[in-house]
């Protein structure tokens, strides 16, 4: 009798009401968690050049995180199945230019260290018996709070392209294609820290297979009040040129950037530019300028002191 009652109760109990599901979902970063934010009002026509460049870098940085929107989308749904120490979304067929493919998203946790999660977004050609190809894979160590913790994820595209999976990723709209992306981040406490290494093919429109790529490194930090910093460094694999920019800004928008250029042959110069809350230049030092352009304009004392990051 007790068994019958138990069976009835068990059959009657249903739903998706799960705290553990949340913990698994919590392991995948949301784009908004690690995207860089800089005040962006209506930009004046005379916006400081390095301010504009900082905005562009942040746009590229955030654009590289577009992949996470897939995770954001998946997070809207409950897991398809619950496995031992894991949750699975999918497999589900893909649409549009990916008809004939299916995706799945798996998150597992270490039973010995429940705060440690691993996840992978994979695709597979339907019915071909092919192996699942990793697209996004990552790890996360939860420290409490909504998606608070430290994590790393990696996006690779070469295997997907080799398998015939259509992948059109044009970060800058100029034909550059993503090769790899590595992101390490910590959202456990302020300042939030995000380090990104991005590799872009630069000859996607002219060469097959792609031969040249540029490696771009970003490091972004942000305080809770909106104060932030972005470091950017790009190296062209073909020319060896390196450009690095370190920008910092206050919550109001007022900021400073130091741009360093190296040609690989010994030339190493750094330009410093500061701007006010309207992003209009207040100071500029451009060592490679030639008269009649002034090498230095304004006073360095007018630059904000943003040394906390």
């Amino acid at each position: 009798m007790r068994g019958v009652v138990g069976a009835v109760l068990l059959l009657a109990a249903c739903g998706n009401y799960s705290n553990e599901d949340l913990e698994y979902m919590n392991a995948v970063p949301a784009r908004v968690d690690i995207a860089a934010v800089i005040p962006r009002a209506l930009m004046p026509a005379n916006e400081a050049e390095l301010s504009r460049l900082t905005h562009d870098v942040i746009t590229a940085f955030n654009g590289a995180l577009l992949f996470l929107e897939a995770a954001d989308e998946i997070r809207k749904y409950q897991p398809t199945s619950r496995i031992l120490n894991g949750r699975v979304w999918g497999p589900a067929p893909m649409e549009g230019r990916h008809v004939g493919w299916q995706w799945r998203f798996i998150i597992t946790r270490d039973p010995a260290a429940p705060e440690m999660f691993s996840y992978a977004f994979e695709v597979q050609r339907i019915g071909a018996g092919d192996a699942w190809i990793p697209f996004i894979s990552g790890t996360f160590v939860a420290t409490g709070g909504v998606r608070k913790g430290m994590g790393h994820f990696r996006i690779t595209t070469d295997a997907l392209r080799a398998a015939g999976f259509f992948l059109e990723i044009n970060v800058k709209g100029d034909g550059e294609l993503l090769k790899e992306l590595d992101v390490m981040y910590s959202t456990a406490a302020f300042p939030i820290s995000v380090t990104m290494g991005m590799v872009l093919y630069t000859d996607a429109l002219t060469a097959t297979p792609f031969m040249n790529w540029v490696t771009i490194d970003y490091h972004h930090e942000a305080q809770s009040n909106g104060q932030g910093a972005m470091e950017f460094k790009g190296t062209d694999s073909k020319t060896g040129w390196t450009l690095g920019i370190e920008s910092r800004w206050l919550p109001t928008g007022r900021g400073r950037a130091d741009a360093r250029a190296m040609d690989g042959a010994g030339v190493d110069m750094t330009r410093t530019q500061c701007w006010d809350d309207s992003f209009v230049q207040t100071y500029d030092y451009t060592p490679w300028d030639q008269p009649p352009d002034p090498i230095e304009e304004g006073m360095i004392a007018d630059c904000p002191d943003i040394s906390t990051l």
Partner: protein
Amino acid sequence: MGRFPVRFALLALVAVTATASTARAQGLRRFAIVAGNDVGGGDTKSLLYASADARKVHEILTRLGGVKPEDATLLIGASASQMLSAIVAVEMQAAEAARRGERTALLFYYSGHAKDGALRLGETRIPVDGIKARIASSPIDVRIAILDSCKSGAFTRTKGARKAPAFEIQSESPRDAKGMVILTSSTSDEDSQESDAIGGSYFSHHLASGLLGGADKSGDGRVTLFEAYAYAYDRTVADTAESAAGAQHPTFSYDLAGNGDLVLTDVAVRHEGVYLPREAPSGVYFMVDGKGFVAAEISKADGVDRRVALAPGRYRVKRRLPDRLRIGEIEVQRGQLVALAEARLRDAPFSDDPVKGAGRVDLTSRWSLGAGATYQSVFAAPSGASLFPPTGMLAVDLSLRNFLRRDWIWSFDLAAGSADGFVSSVGAPFRFSEVSLASSLLVEWPGRYVTPFVGGRIALLLMGRRFTDDIYPQQFFSTLSPGLVGGAAFRVMKNTSLVARGRLHYLLYNIDEDRSLGYWELAAMVAYDL
């Protein structure tokens, strides 16, 4: 107060009629068929006390009525064919006794539904005319049929039923009685009513009280058929006069040749029970048994004494005065007649009335509607609370009383509420919502002011939560949750009560893992009897 069409009782008792002469009575072989059936088929509501009345009559007849246990057939919930088989069996036994030169009598008692000219025995029926003709033609010297059921007067109509006991049959005829007597609980157009307080139908209750000695008007220790009927008539009419269903008038019919009065019970022979001495104040004495039901209700007049042949046991005694009660306790031991002196009673307020329900209680099924607030919380905090936070709810319930059984409540309730919760492991605040739809089966003990109740409940719980800023998808969970209920209703107005209630429930949670969670719930309600 009255419970009508609910109750039909046909007490057909063919029994023993003994003449007033003891010697003659000893020469009479008495048989009894006593039937009670609470169920009368799909178009009737279950009776509450038909079976209990039959058991009471059976006990009195075998203890005081000269019916040997082997000659008494008790039919509880029997079908029509079983009843007819019992009659056939008694006829065969009677015929055998007659061959041995014995005189025979049959007392046929039926308590149950009767409708559309038929006795209702569960889903089966026996036409009233048919059972009457069968008893009338039985080869038994004296047949007494007692029918306790609605409109049972139709049973006596052809024999000149009388609404009043306008008979004073005190024949001194030495001839042996032969023929048939019929008693019914009501006329052909009246309902027979039950009382919750006395735990039986008015008619059978007063008939039984009379047979126990209350009807011994002559004081000779023997209760005759006519004494019993007259007593039952007076008391039934008096008790039902103010009822919603109207006064109920028992009827009587007889067709006896050479009859003397017929002794039904001998309350003196066992010399046990309660003795009300001549000097005891007049009034109605209630003898309440250990279960709270009235075992006997004796109307005593000034200057007379009464023997009440109660079975051994402990009884509470009550006599009602205009401004108070006189109550006391007595214990009847086997073979002992206990005198109830007035000194053994004490004054008591009406609130101490030992008669259950402090008076006549309406046994009609009735609805009540309640509304109020509840608060529930799971036991397994904090993990349980991170799933199901403590929640306040608004609730309404609809209760049906005395439908399944006396003092049983079948209740349906609906509650809804919400609360804020927090999943600490991921730091996610959420809004929890719950709707519960439940049914309860309760037993209550009605009191004058306070009515406690306990029972079981099964609830369908529909729960969901929405996370702040929609950072996670909505979640839901539904489950069946069995539990226990207890509480009390405090009557504040005639039809209005305040209800305090507690619940303990089992909650099976099986999403992340199988977990047996429990929750408690407290409620304050206002209930109104419709």
